[in-house]
């Protein structure tokens, strides 16, 4: 049975449709990405799953619980890290964890949690004294202090510098290793590609694709591009049957194709004793897939 099951979720605010029709399943122990542009309906979806908002229609089950009817039980087993949620400026890190731990029947050990999130040496600091990354990690710690089975992390790394972002990613992987199922809301492709086992791509309130990052990339046009400067003139017709070839004025050749185009082009060049200099290779990323799957324009 999936840990989270969402069917035909619909939610509007006045005349604005925030979530049109979202269905998804999250399995135990995975990191599930909810990926989409700003305003695509990601946050509304997870806030309904977390019992903070009520859907207009559709069904949601989290560990078999209805987030509306079983709200109080849901609170004990689901940890929510909200977007842009601050704490009292003068609240001390350790104090915050001890306080939130006292809200749960079977809390995690705050000391251990601080250690795992790399906050031990900041335990005595006030919230206002923390860096952006430390605030986010404290926020994650508070979402985990109740020992939840499911953790929902919304825009975890937005506003963090690249270093802090990477540290936070390691934290997310460690949480998964503890057996917690994670729903990660993000608009960063790199983050989703690096962390998520599976992804639901949401656009304009609808799920446009679900699958592993590799599956989503494959579903979009998975074209590969080689750019190089040949060490000797390339015989006419050598590459043309392998790839779409364009020659630039500066002598650079660009070859585009699918499947084994990279190996085929390199082998053909090698057979003629030509070295591809300044070789650069571009592969379709999740970002390309995202663009391909969320824009209505043909690609």
């Amino acid at each position: 049975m999936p840990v989270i099951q969402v069917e035909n979720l619909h939610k509007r605010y006045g005349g604005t449709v925030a979530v049109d029709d979202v269905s998804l399943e999250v399995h135990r122990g995975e990191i599930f990405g909810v990926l989409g542009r700003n305003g695509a309906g990601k946050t509304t979806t997870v806030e309904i799953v977390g019992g903070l908002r009520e859907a207009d229609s559709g069904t949601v089950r989290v560990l078999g619980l209805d987030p509306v009817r079983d709200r109080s039980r849901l609170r004990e087993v689901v940890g929510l890290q909200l977007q842009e949620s601050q704490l009292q400026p003068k609240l001390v890190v350790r104090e915050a964890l001890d306080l939130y731990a006292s809200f749960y029947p079977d809390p995690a050990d705050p000391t251990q949690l601080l250690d795992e999130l790399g906050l031990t040496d900041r335990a005595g600091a006030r919230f206002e004294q923390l860096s952006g990354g430390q605030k986010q990690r404290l926020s994650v710690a508070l979402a985990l202090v109740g020992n939840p089975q499911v953790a929902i992390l919304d825009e975890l790394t937005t506003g963090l510098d690249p270093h802090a972002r990477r540290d936070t990613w390691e934290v997310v992987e460690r949480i998964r290793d503890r057996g917690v199922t994670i729903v990660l809301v993000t608009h960063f492709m790199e983050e989703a590609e690096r962390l998520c086992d599976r992804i639901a791509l949401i656009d304009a309130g609808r799920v446009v694709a679900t699958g592993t990052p590799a599956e989503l990339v494959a579903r979009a046009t998975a074209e590969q591009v080689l750019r190089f400067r040949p060490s000797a003139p390339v015989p006419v017709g050598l590459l043309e049957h392998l790839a779409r070839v364009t020659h630039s004025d500066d002598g650079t050749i660009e070859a585009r194709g699918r499947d084994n185009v990279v190996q085929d082009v390199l082998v053909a060049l090698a057979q003629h004793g030509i070295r591809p200099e300044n070789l650069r290779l571009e592969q379709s990323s999740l970002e390309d897939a995202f663009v391909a799957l969320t824009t209505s324009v043909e690609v």
Partner: protein
Amino acid sequence: MSSTSVTASLTGAQARLTTVEARLFLREPSGAFFAVLFPAVLLTVLGLVMPWADVPFDDQDPILSQINGITGYAPTVLALAVATVGLSSYPQTVAGYRGRGVLKRLSTTPVPPSRILVAQVLVNLAALLVAAVLMYVLGVTVVDVAAPAEPLVLLLAFLLTVLATFAVGSVIAALAPNAPAATAWGMTVYFVSLFFAGVWLPLPLMPDAIQTIAGWTPLGAGSEALAAAWYGQPFPTGSLLVLAAWTAVGVPVAARFFRWS
């Protein structure tokens, strides 16, 4: 889990939340000073330096001629103490918590966010009680403030002033779109209230029209009721009814419009 253990853990959580909020209150030194110490400092300093402090409050009035000037000012300072927590500290803190997402974060836990509002009310009430006792003790021992003529009426007037003021503070916290707005509204209401409570000019010296308006404001009515009880004037039925009305209107309005995020 049984319902008793849920209740027990909620009681424990409420106690912890209140303790933490009390510590946070004390970590804002200027806020804590104005809420806890300022009323006592104001009354004592005025009592020591003002020439009117030890002359009769009003020679012409049979009751007011029996008390000195600083005793006449004591109920006003008490009203100021109520306003400082009820109109300034409490609504600003609550609106700030909403703006920062503290209330929303709390609503993701098993403890409802209303618990932090309860904690805030308790902490501000505790600060007010300390302020009132300090003010009274210093007033009586240092600057010769007379004990209130009707202690029980004073207690009733104080209770209703607190209720009405916190009701208005709750409305500010509920309706202000963000923390800066709550501060602006709170401070405006605070200073206007202090004027009507007679902090800058004693009510009896104000024009009749102003006195009439003051009698309809929560802090003006509070100040009048506290004064009547302290001086031993007739039972302030009208003022107490005004206070009760502000409470009866303010609480449901605040509850109706309060947003958690």
